[in-house]
């Protein structure tokens, strides 16, 4: 008897499945994480209630979630936009860091009133992020050098440069810590409410901008088309070169702005290792939200909730924040699995009568 597993690509994904998949995968990941929690003697229901219900319903929790959303959504868009053009930018981390660095430099070294200084910082950060992103984009567009590898490696270059700057040229006057001086009031992004800074408004504007770009403009049409079939797109007269550079530079600029708004709006000074891998979390965010910029925002909110909820779990239940990272990774791993079941139908067939196979004749046959 022979069990045969037959995979067939689905011709059309049933509508219910495309909505159910993300929900089910998140639930599955939470279920597996529950086992992890049980191992360390934490009631998973209590933990999840704290993380997913109390955090977003308390004022502080909500504010923290919104604050964390800002860099996440901007980095998420930095991955999302190239993804729409069929490219993989896994260097949002570096673009975010380099933006924070360039913006901080302006904030610390240029004296202007806040109305002018903050926009200048944001602009510089955007340019720096865009410039870093332009390298892999150009290498890909011009020479077909794989953008995945180059964007990733440039991230680590950016992280080291940050480390160098805060230890060397930009180190603050107080003490030996690898960090800059505190930003002046003029260099601080103003607060909106409850410590939530103006960066949130900027991020939302950028989400809307990206949404409109993709759904209301010719450029968006070109990006979508090139992302789906670049050969047909070129045949129709669209330019791969232009679009590849554009999506990467725009994405890099968004990430850069995300970086400086986190520094100027939340942390107040630039430190080495100032952020917990937002640029990498951006990859699953873009994957979850790849259908539209709005969904990227929703995915960012969800991950921001995981971050802040994780911090709360740490504070109130003594659960290490590292668990959040585990849960995040699990969600994505399950999401990938879910993708598969969405795309393929699996049939099991049990076959009787195995045809007797001629026994292999061993030995040389010269």
């Amino acid at each position, binding site marked *: 008897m022979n069990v045969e597993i*037959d*995979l*067939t690509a689905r011709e059309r994904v049933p509508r219910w499945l495309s909505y159910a998949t993300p929900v089910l995968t998140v639930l599955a990941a939470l279920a597996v994480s529950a086992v*992890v929690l049980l191992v360390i003697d934490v009631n998973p229901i209590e933990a999840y209630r704290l993380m997913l219900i109390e955090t977003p319903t308390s004022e502080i929790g909500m504010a923290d979630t919104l604050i964390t959303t800002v860099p996440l959504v901007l980095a998420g868009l930095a991955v999302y936009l190239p993804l729409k053009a069929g490219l*993989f930018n*896994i260097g949002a981390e570096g673009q975010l860091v380099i933006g924070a660095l360039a913006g901080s430099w302006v904030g610390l070294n240029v004296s202007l009133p806040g109305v002018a200084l903050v926009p200048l910082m944001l602009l510089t950060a955007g340019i720096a992020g865009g410039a870093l992103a332009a390298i892999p984009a150009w*290498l890909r567009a011009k*020479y*077909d*050098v*794989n953008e*995945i*590898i*180059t964007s*990733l*490696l*440039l991230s*680590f*270059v950016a*992280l*080291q*440069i940050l*480390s*160098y700057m805060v*230890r*060397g040229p930009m180190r603050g006057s107080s003490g030996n810590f690898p960090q800059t001086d505190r930003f002046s009031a003029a260099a601080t992004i103003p607060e909106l409410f409850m410590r939530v800074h103006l960066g949130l408004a900027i991020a939302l504007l950028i989400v809307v901008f990206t949404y409109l770009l993709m759904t209301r403009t010719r450029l968006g049409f070109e990006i979508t088309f090139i992302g789906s079939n670049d050969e047909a797109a070129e045949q129709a007269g669209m330019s791969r070169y232009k679009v590849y550079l554009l999506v990467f530079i725009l994405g890099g600029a968004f990430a850069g702005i995300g970086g400086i708004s986190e520094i100027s709006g939340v942390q107040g000074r630039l430190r080495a290792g100032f952020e917990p*891998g937002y640029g*990498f979390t951006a*990859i*699953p965010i873009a*994957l979850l939200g790849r259908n539209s910029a709005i969904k990227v925002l929703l995915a960012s909110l969800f991950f921001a909730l995981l971050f802040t909820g994780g911090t709360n779990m740490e504070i109130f239940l003594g659960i*290490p924040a*590292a*668990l*959040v*990272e*585990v*849960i*995040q*990774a*699990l969600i*994505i*791993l399950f999401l*990938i*699995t879910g*993708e*598969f079941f969405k795309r393929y139908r699996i049939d099991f067939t049990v076959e009787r009568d195995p045809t007797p196979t001629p026994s292999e004749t061993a030995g040389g046959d010269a």
Partner: protein
Amino acid sequence: MAGFLGGLLNATVSAATVFILAGLGELISERAGVLNLGVEGMMLSGALGGFIVTVVTGSTWLGLFAGIVAGMALASIHAFLCISLKANQVISGVMLTLLGTGLTTFYGSRWVENSIDGFSQVTVPLVGQYLVDIPVIGTALFSNTPTDYIALALVPITWYFLNHSNMGLELISVGEDPEMADTMGVAVFKLRYLAVIIGGGFAGAAGAHLSLAFSQLWVPGMTAGRGWIAVALVIFAQWTPSRMLVGAYLFGMLDALQLRSQALSFSVGADTPLAGIINPTIDFLMNGQIMATYPYLATILVLSYAVIKTKSDRLAVPSALLQSYSRETD
């Protein structure tokens, strides 16, 4: 200066071992067509797994074994997702790193306090001591931990396996053209699984070397990006074990130099023309953090140079890298 050089060389050998082990593992996986960006995560789990078992059992060898198993366990997730479920290799790999980092930080925090007797230096038997006494290079060459020697031995073994065994030949064919390999009766899925999991074992061993021999302690996140350097190293070495050996020592020396960069000072005399520019430039280039960017920059340069200068069908990159394979059914 001799003492400094000797110390640097010693540290280089030990640092290079990390890159050799992790790099060879990644190389095997990539030659079979599967990119695994989870090296950092697999290394961390190897480091922690190895450390815990060593603390509990007191045996570094059991620890090393545990490290290998931990790396393999994580790699099998990647293998299942990418080979059976045809998931995107990039995303799965990055998530594997997140998972490995998270899990080891989570479970590893309470092991930080522990101390172990890690692998100690072993001298080459018989004539060993005389060789070790050779100034500067003596200890670097002839007095190292067992893992250093194992890593060194694995380079020719991997080379031999890939180029002079049927399994190696089949593995390469799977990474070049899985469809054709399937036609010729090669077990595509089995070999890809094998390559990814063996690759994970190598990464686990690299991590175990880090915690059991290199630093002899456990700190969350102790790989400090070395897994990513290993990924870069495979590209730098253009997918060949022998070049990887060279690259690993180069990157290993950079790694060792970073820790010692403060002890270094090169400068030209103040009266030399352009001294005002040259000296700060040297300082900048010799800075530890700046030196840490060299492996990445060098890799980007090598990759770009290779892609631009080589005809596309002669590139060193395995032709089917990143491509999932599904048997065509009619």
